[in-house]
C-alpha cells in the first residue's frame, strides 16, 4: 500500500531514475481497449497487472517525460501525502483492481464490457472522491459530491476510473491545451524538427485525454467536445477521437461550457474501441433532458460495421448501394496546408478504390460558422460560469470584502485570460443592446448551418474533411500567439458539425513530412453513428495507412 507514495516521493526528488517498464508491461500497454478487455476476460492478464502497468506509465508520463497529460500540481504531492485523501490515485486504482481480481477468481466470470480496465476522464467530469478542477484555479480544490453519468456508466461496466484526471484547457476553452493551471499538455510525438524534445502541443481542449492514450498511459480516455475539443487533439496526437451526436451521451456531471454543444467524447486507439465505449455509456438519462430518448447503442458487436472490406454496398440510406462520401468544397480553406490537402485527396481516392462513391458537396454557410460558434458558445459559457462566485466552493479571495467586491475579485483572480475573454464576449452578446444583433442572429445562422448538413446528407452518407489546417504546432508558438483568433482558426473544420450537433470522428491516417500525425475527419447525419463508424473503420483498415505508427519512444 505504501509503495505508490514511496515511489512518488522518490520520483519527485530524482526524476531521472524513474521506474522502468518490463517487456511484459510494455506489451500490455501497447494493446488497445478491446484487446485488453479480451486479455482480462481470457485470463491472459488480470486487472491488478493492468492497473500496475498503467499507473507506472502514468507516473512516467508525468514525471519522466513531463507531458502534463494529467492534472498534477507541483505542490500536489506534498499536499496529498498530508491529506491521504482523494489524491492517492495510484493506491486507489491498484486497490480497486486487486479487489476485482480477487472477486473474479471465485465468482462467475465478469460480464462487464470494460471489466478491470482503467479508463481516464478529462478534468471536467465530476467524480465523487476525486478532484474536478477543469484545470482552473477557480476550482483548484473542488471535489464534487456526486458522480457524473459518464463516470458512473464506466464504473458500472467494470472500468476503473483513476481519480487523477486528464489535463485540459481551462474550462475546455482552447485548442492547444496550453491554458491550464497545471501547465500545457505536451504531445508525446516528437517531430523531426523538435530536437528530441516534447515541444508540440497535444491539441485541445481534451489534450490530456488524447495524450494519455497516445502515450500508452491509458487505453482510452473520456474527453469533451464543444467545438472540436476531442477531434483536434486526437488528430494531433495520432489517436481516434469520436464526438457522438449531441444528446447521445448524458452531460450530467460534465462541467458545462457551451451547453448546447458539449458532448462527452472518446479518445481511443481504435475505432472499435470508441464504439465499445459509446455502447457502454450512451443512452437517455433522466438527469439530462437533452439526451436522445433511446437506449444505449450496440455497435461494438455489430458485424455489419466491422466485417466490411468492400464499401460498394454499404450505403446506410439506400441498401445495396455504395457508401457515398461527400467532400465539402468550402472546407478547402486558404489555411489548409498543401500536405494536408493532398492527403485528403489520396484518402478520398482510397475510399473510391474500396468501392465508395465520392461526391463533391457544398455547405454554403460554412464561412459563418466560426463567428456563430464563438457568439453562442461564449454566451452559454458566460452564463454557465456565472455560478463560480467563490461563495459556496472554489477559489475565493481571503479578505473580508463586501459581497459584490468579493465576487468580482474572486472571479478576476480565479479565471485565466482566455476564460475571461469568452465570459466578456458572451456577456456582451447577451446584453440588451446587442442581443438581437449578435446572439439572435447567430442562432439564426446556426439554423442555416444545420440546414446545410440536412441538405447534404440527403445525398451522401458521410462527409470526409481534414480535422485542422495542419499538424500540431509547438506549444510556444501557441503561447506566443498575440491574436486569439489565430487559435480559433484551428477549429474551423470541426465547428460546423458541433453547431449542427451531428456526430464526427477523427481517425489518424498518416504522418506528415515532419513526422507528426495527421487525422481525417468523418461527419455523419444526426444519430448516424453507425455509418460514421463503418466509414471510419474502413479508413482505419485501408492498407495504405495501416497500421498507424505509435510513439514508442515513450514506452
Amino acid at each position, binding site marked *: 500500500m505504501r509503495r505508490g507514495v514511496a515511489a512518488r516521493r522518490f520520483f519527485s526528488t530524482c526524476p531521472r531514475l524513474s521506474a522502468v517498464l518490463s517487456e511484459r508491461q510494455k506489451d500490455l500497454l501497447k494493446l488497445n481497449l478491446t484487446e485488453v478487455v479480451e486479455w482480462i476476460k481470457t485470463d491472459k492478464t488480470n486487472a491488478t497487472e493492468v492497473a500496475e502497468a498503467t499507473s507506472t506509465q502514468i507516473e512516467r508520463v508525468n514525471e519522466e517525460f513531463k507531458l502534463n497529460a494529467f492534472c498534477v500540481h507541483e505542490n500536489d504531492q506534498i499536499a496529498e501525502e498530508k491529506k491521504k485523501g482523494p489524491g492517492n490515485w495510484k493506491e486507489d486504482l491498484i486497490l480497486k483492481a486487486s479487489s476485482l481480481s480477487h472477486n473474479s477468481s471465485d465468482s462467475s466470470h465478469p460480464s462487464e464490457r470494460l471489466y478491470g480496465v482503467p479508463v481516464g476522464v478529462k478534468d471536467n467530469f465530476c467524480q465523487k472522491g476525486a478532484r474536478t478542477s477543469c484545470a482552473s484555479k477557480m476550482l483548484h480544490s473542488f471535489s464534487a459530491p456526486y458522480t457524473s453519468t459518464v463516470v458512473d456508466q464506466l464504473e458500472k461496466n467494470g472500468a476503473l476510473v483513476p481519480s487523477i484526471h486528464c489535463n485540459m484547457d481551462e474550462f475546455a476553452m482552447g485548442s492547444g491545451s496550453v491554458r491550464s493551471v497545471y501547465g500545457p499538455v505536451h504531445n508525446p510525438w516528437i517531430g523531426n524538427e523538435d530536437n528530441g524534445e516534447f515541444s508540440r502541443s497535444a491539441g485541445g481542449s481534451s489534450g490530456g485525454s488524447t495524450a494519455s492514450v497516445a502515450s500508452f498511459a491509458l487505453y482510452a480516455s473520456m474527453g469533451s467536445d464543444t467545438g472540436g475539443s476531442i477531434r483536434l487533439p486526437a488528430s494531433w496526437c495520432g489517436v481516434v477521437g469520436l464526438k457522438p451526436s449531441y444528446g447521445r451521451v448524458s452531460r*450530467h456531471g460534465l462541467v458545462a461550457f457551451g451547453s448546447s454543444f458539449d458532448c462527452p467524447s472518446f479518445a481511443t486507439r481504435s475505432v472499435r474501441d470508441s464504439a465499445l465505449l459509446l455502447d457502454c455509456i450512451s443512452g437517455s438519462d433522466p438527469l*439530462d433532458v437533452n439526451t436522445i430518448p433511446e437506449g444505449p447503442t450496440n455497435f461494438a458487436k455489430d458485424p455489419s460495421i466491422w466485417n466490411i472490406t468492400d464499401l460498394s454496398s454499404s450505403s446506410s440510406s439506400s441498401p445495396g448501394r455504395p457508401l457515398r462520401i461527400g467532400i465539402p468544397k468550402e472546407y478547402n480553406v486558404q489555411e489548409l496546408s498543401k500536405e494536408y490537402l493532398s492527403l485528403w485527396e489520396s484518402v478520398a481516392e482510397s475510399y473510391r478504390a474500396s468501392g465508395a462513391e465520392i461526391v463533391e458537396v457544398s455547405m454554403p454557410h460554412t464561412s459563418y460558422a466560426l463567428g456563430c460558434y464563438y457568439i453562442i458558445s461564449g454566451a452559454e459559457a458566460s452564463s454557465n460560469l456565472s455560478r463560480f462566485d467563490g461563495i459556496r466552493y472554489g477559489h475565493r479571495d481571503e479578505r473580508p470584502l463586501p459581497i459584490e467586491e468579493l465576487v468580482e475579485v474572486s472571479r478576476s483572480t480565479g479565471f485565466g485570460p482566455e476564460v475571461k475573454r469568452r465570459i466578456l464576449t458572451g456577456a456582451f452578446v447577451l446584453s440588451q443592446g446587442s442581443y438581437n444583433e449578435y446572439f439572435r442572429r447567430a442562432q439564426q445562422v446556426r439554423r442555416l448551418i444545420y440546414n446545410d448538413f440536412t441538405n447534404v446528407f440527403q445525398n451522401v452518407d458521410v462527409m470526409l474533411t481534414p480535422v485542422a489546417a495542419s499538424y500540431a504546432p509547438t506549444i510556444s508558438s501557441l503561447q506566443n500567439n498575440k491574436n486569439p483568433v489565430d487559435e480559433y482558426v484551428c477549429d474551423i473544420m470541426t465547428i460546423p458539425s458541433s453547431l449542427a450537433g451531428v456526430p464526427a470522428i477523427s481517425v489518424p491516417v498518416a504522418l506528415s513530412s515532419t513526422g507528426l500525425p495527421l487525422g481525417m475527419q468523418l461527419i455523419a447525419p444526426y444519430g448516424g453513428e453507425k455509418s460514421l463508424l463503418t466509414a471510419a473503420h474502413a479508413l482505419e483498415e485501408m492498407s495504405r495507412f495501416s497500421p498507424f505508427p505509435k510513439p514508442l519512444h515513450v514506452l
Partner: protein
Amino acid sequence: RTRSKLFSRAPSPFEGDSESDPPNSRIGFCDGGLPGALPTINKRAMEQAALTGVSLGGRLNLFNRFDRKHYFYPDLPNGYQITQQFFPIVTGGGIELLSDEVMLSDEESRANYLAEVAKFRRQQSNPDSEGPSEKQFGARKQKRREEAMQRVSDYKKRFDDLSVIPFHDFRASHGWEETLTGEEDNGGFKRYKKTVRINRLQLEQDSGKSLHDQHPSLSFVDLNRAGTALVEIVGEPDLHSSQEAVVYVRKLQRLLQVIGSSEAELDRGSFRCDVNISVRPFIPEGQKGPSMELYDAQTLAAINKPGRVEVKNLNSFKIVKLAIDYEIERQIKSLEAGIPVSYETRQWDGSKDQTYKLRSKESSVDYRFLPDPDLPPMVLSEEFEKSTKDTIASIKLPDQIRSLLCAPPFLLPLEVAIILVEEPGAFEYFNSMIAAFPETLSKAPAATSQWIVSELLGHLRKTNLTVSQSPIPPAQLASIVDAIEREAITGKIGKQLLQMMYDGDKRMANEITKELGLEVISDEAVLRDLCTKVLDAHPEEVQKFLRGQDRVKRFFSGEIMKQTKGLAHPAKTDALLLELLALRK
C-alpha cells in the same frame, strides 16, 4: 406546491415538516449550483401552474420556454434564475372584485357596510316604515358601530392634510362599474364590480435565503428554498387602493388553496407579495390634466416625472395594506414637496411601520436573458390542455361557490356568502352541517350559515383558528341549529351549548340538553300557568300595559325567561301573554 423542486428531485421546503430542517439540508445538485449539474423539469409544477392560470381565466400557452436571468447574489447559486421571461405558461386572465368584498375586507368599513346592508334590507322588507332608528340596533351593536366610525375618522384624519380620498369609493375612473350580480337577494342595493387583469403567470425558481442576523460579522446562506417551483402572477395596474389590493390578494390566495396549487400561506413564505405603487394626480371630471387649483407648480413638475416604487416581500395582509397606505402617503407628501418619486425597491420595516429604500432601479440591471440551453422548449400536449381544463371544470372555484350559496336553495345574503367563501373550510363546513341534519337544516340555510359566520367564527378568531381547524365538528354545531329549528331549545341556550362544546364537550346538543334539563318549555299548560303567575304578581305593570305602554310586555317575557332560565318558548310565551293580558282589559 410540489413535492420536489422545479428543476431537481430535492424535496421542496414547504413539503412536510420543513420548519425543523437544518439549513442547507434540502439541496439538489442543480439547486446548489454545482458544476455539471443539470436541471430536469418537474411535471407536477407545470400542471399546477397551468391549473392556476386556467382557473384565473388565462390562456394556456402550449409553447413554453425557460430563460436564464442573470445576476450575482449569494443566495442565487447558479448566478442566474431560470424563469419564463418570454414564453410564460399562461397569459391573461383576471380576478373579479365586488364592492361588497372590498367593504368587508377591513375592520373600518366592515361594520359600516353591514349596517348599511341591514338598513337596506329592512327598508326592502317593510317599504312603508321609515328607516329603522339608531336605537333599534341594540346597545351593543350601536357601540361597536360607534367604535368603527371612530376608527374611520381617525384614519381619515391622517390624510386630512392630503388632497386624497383615502376611503373607498367605487368610481368609474377606478375601473368600477355598477352591477347586478344576479346573485343577491336585494335587487336595489348599490353594488359595483371590477376586474383586475392578470398579465401573465410564469414558472420560475425560487432563490435561497441570506441570513444576516446569525452572527455579528458573518452572513449565512440557506439554500433549502433555492430552486423551489415558484409561480409568479403579474397583475396589471388595475388596483386603486390598499383595500382593493388586499381583496385581490385574498381572493388569489383562496383560489390557490381551493385548486390545491399552493398552501398559499403568507407567513410561511409559500405566498409572497411584491407591490408596485405609484400615485397619480386627481383629474377632475371632463378635464384632461390635473388642475392648477389643486396643485402648485412644483408639485405638478414633480408629478410629471414618472416613478414607481416596488415594495418587496410583504408577508401578511395587514402589512400589504399598511405598506400601500404608507407609500401612498409618502409619495404624495414627496410630490407635494416638489420631490419626484423615483424608480426604486423598498422594504417594509415592521418595527417602524414604514418602508425604507433597498436599492434604486434608476440604472436598470441588464439581466442578459438567455434561453436555457439545458432545457429544450417544452411543448404541452393538447391532452394536457384538455385535462387541465377538465380538472378546473370539476372544481368549484370560490366565485362559483359564492354564486351557488346565493342561489336557490340556499339564497344566502351575499355578505354571508362572501364570508363563507373567504374562510378556509367554511363552505365545506356548511355543507357538512346540512348533511348531518338534512331534514331541519336544509330548510334553514340562512340560520345554519349565521351560526358559522357570527357564532363559530367569533370563537375561532379569538384563538386564531380557521374553520377547517375548528375543534367543534360540523355535525356537533349542526345539532345545535337542529335543536333550535325543532324549537327544542332557544337561541340563547344554543349559544351556551356552543360555549360548552368549544370548551370540550363532545356530546350532541340533544344529549347535553337532556342531561341538564335545558330543553325548551313549550307545553302550553305549563306556560299558561307561568304567565298567569307573573301577571298576578305585577298588577302595576299590567295596568301600565293596559294604558297602552306596549313596552311593558317585554318586562313580562323577561320575567318569565328569568324564572325559566331562558327555557320558555319565546313565541308561544309572547302569544300567551298577549292573550292573557287581553283578558284583563
